């Protein structure tokens, strides 16, 4: 469904990503994790075409992404970033439906889809005509997810989607997200630096360090069979909140 083949990227003289291969099976959830500056967000930006690779290729549904087909490919990807990236000058309704209206989808279809998504993400009623500044951070992320899902994409890209939320809201949204992913069966590629969150979503973890993939596997595999000392180090650094999980898997 999505594969990176020897994709590399540097900004100026500093390499952000060394040549990397990565493959995502349809319907799978993949979590890119690692300390900041490890290249996890770069991978997401390369897939969304927000930055172009210096070397290698990104294949999306069998086709190599190029400048020409990028625009079309983006319509089949949903993208959510930290703090949502909502357009402050558009109402919630307009934010979610902006692309559908740009593509001149029927308004009946748009309304139906909007209601469906509001229900899916548990967005409280009556917010459609508000503006992003009038919503809470959690509500904004729900709206951002609605916008990403509007055109029913095959691939969901999430860059620290819960990074800016306070713990309570974050916990609720984590649960909601997990159940939404389960219901939709979409391919998900998510970036986080929080290992608990990564484990929560399940799926394949891809641990990165300094522009390289260090290890790829389930959380159990990472704990039981770390590829190098860094893996253990990274996990134990965040150990406290994970104690119970660690015991369960040990």
């Amino acid at each position: 469904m999505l594969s990176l083949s020897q994709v590399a990227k540097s900004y100026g003289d500093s390499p952000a990503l060394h040549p990397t291969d990565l493959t995502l099976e349809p319907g799978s959830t993949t979590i890119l994790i690692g300390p900041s500056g490890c290249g996890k967000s770069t991978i997401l930006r390369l897939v969304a075409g927000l930055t172009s690779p210096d070397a290698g290729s990104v294949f999306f549904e069998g086709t190599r992404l190029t400048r020409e087909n990028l625009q079309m490919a983006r319509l089949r990807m949903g993208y959510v970033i930290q703090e949502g990236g909502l357009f402050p000058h558009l109402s919630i309704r307009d934010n979610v439906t902006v692309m559908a209206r740009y593509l001149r989808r029927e308004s009946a279809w748009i309304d139906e889809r909007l209601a469906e998504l509001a229900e899916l993400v548990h967005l409280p009623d009556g917010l459609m005509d508000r503006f992003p500044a009038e919503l809470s951070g959690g509500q904004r992320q729900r709206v951002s997810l609605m916008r990403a899902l509007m055109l029913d994409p095959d691939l969901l890209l999430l860059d620290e989607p819960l990074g800016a939320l306070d713990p309570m809201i974050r916990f609720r949204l984590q649960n909601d997200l997990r159940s939404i992913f389960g219901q939709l069966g979409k391919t998900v590629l998510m970036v986080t630096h929080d290992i608990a969150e990564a484990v929560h979503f399940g799926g394949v973890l891809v641990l990165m360090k300094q522009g390289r993939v260090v290890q790829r596997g389930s959380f159990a595999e990472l704990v039981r069979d770390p590829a190098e000392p860094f893996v253990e180090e990274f996990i134990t650094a965040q150990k406290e909140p994970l104690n119970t999980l660690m015991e369960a898997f040990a």
Partner: protein
Amino acid sequence: MIRRRHLLTLSTLLLLTGATASVGAADDPEVVVGSKSFTESVILGEMLVQLAEDVGGAARHRRQLGGTRVLWSALLEGEIDAYPEYTGTLLRETLAEVGLADAAELERYLSSLSISMTPPLGFNNTYAIGVKAELADRMELRRISDLRDHPDLILGFGNEFMERSDGWPGLRDRYRLPQQNVRGLDHDLAYRGLESGALHVTDLYSTDAEIAYYGLRALEDDLAFFPRYDAVVLYRTDLAHRLPRIVSSFSRLAGIIDEKSMSRMNARVKIHGVQEERVANEFLVQTLEIRERAEPISETGRLWQHTKEHLVLVGVSLSAAILLAVPLGIVAARQQRLGQIILGIAGVLQTIPSLALFVFMIPVLGIGGPPAIVALFLYSLLPIVRNTHAGLRDIPPSIIDSARALGLPPGGRLRIVELPMAARSIFAGVKTSAVINVGTATLGALIGAGGYGQPILTGIRLDDMGLILQGAVPAALLALVVQGLFDLVEWRLLPRGLRAADIPRT
């Protein structure tokens, strides 16, 4: 539909500010008379208009244009057909480099330029150097040479006199004058400076009404520096073919105005506050028995006329500036290097003093509305370009990324996301430009564009505070109105999400 109304932003602005230009036509059977920016020239110009009308012609008076050079080039270019001039000015200043010896040579040379000259009107309005009578007595100043012994005197001359070869530079060299403290200012203001004691010495025109009024003494030109300045009328030779009756009507002025009458007419206007039209008419009725004139245009009629002129200047120049500057700002925001060049050029244009910018336009576009509009247009670019550029660059990168990741192509991004988000900044730029434009447009009067600058210029010339206010107050009000209009348009068009006090830092 995606908010179509954003698309309408620009066109609505244009409708609001746009007015249609009523630029003068060239080939109508109308004679265009020019005059310099001092009272005597305006009176003489007014006489020419009335003489043309007396023989059934149509005439327009471009009053008090900014200086000899402006009038001379306007005459050569055919922007005006005639204006009152002085032989000494032509010989010693305008055509000084040609090296003409006398009036006969002057006439021959002018005809080679297709310019004709009437016989002298009868008076010699020469330059003189004047001081207050009591100062002259106290310091025993009789001749210009006597100034040599008083290096501490403060000299203030009319701006033209400061530059002209028959003015201060030549005078200083001829008399070897030592004074260091010499300033240029408006000729009419110099009299007030003398009266208040801020100046000690100034240049006089020998027919100026103020000489008697302020009790001034003209110092004897003992080294015969100043030539004769016989008043004449210069006109384009083609006028004699086009409108021969008007030219022969002009020549009726030959020899009929002596120094005393000219001086008296100047005094009637400057000291007694009678309008130039009236004074010119009284003289012509008496001497040439032309028809008496009806009362000149009412004050309100005049104000309305100036308002229309001012609105055209501002409306056309500002609309054109918005149309060009917003796209330029977009390009500047997209292309870093090109952007630097665009902002640089717009910045340089802004540093040109506005008065100079107006005068630069004359060789290219002549006088009147069009050159003033172009100057104002150039002047209005920078604030709009800069604010469009800044508004677009200040959009958080995460918003741009979101728009790109959604699949919006560049044009759609600009229309749906970037321009609306930059709208506040763009509007601020437009408002700044509009206010600057309304104020700067008052300088248009110097090159014959009319507007609220006209009463201000006349007011300065006549030391009439009321007249100055007649231009300054409406100009200030207009600036407020224009700003208010844009506030209204902004309030209507600005997306509601941006009207909230804070834009979330997403």
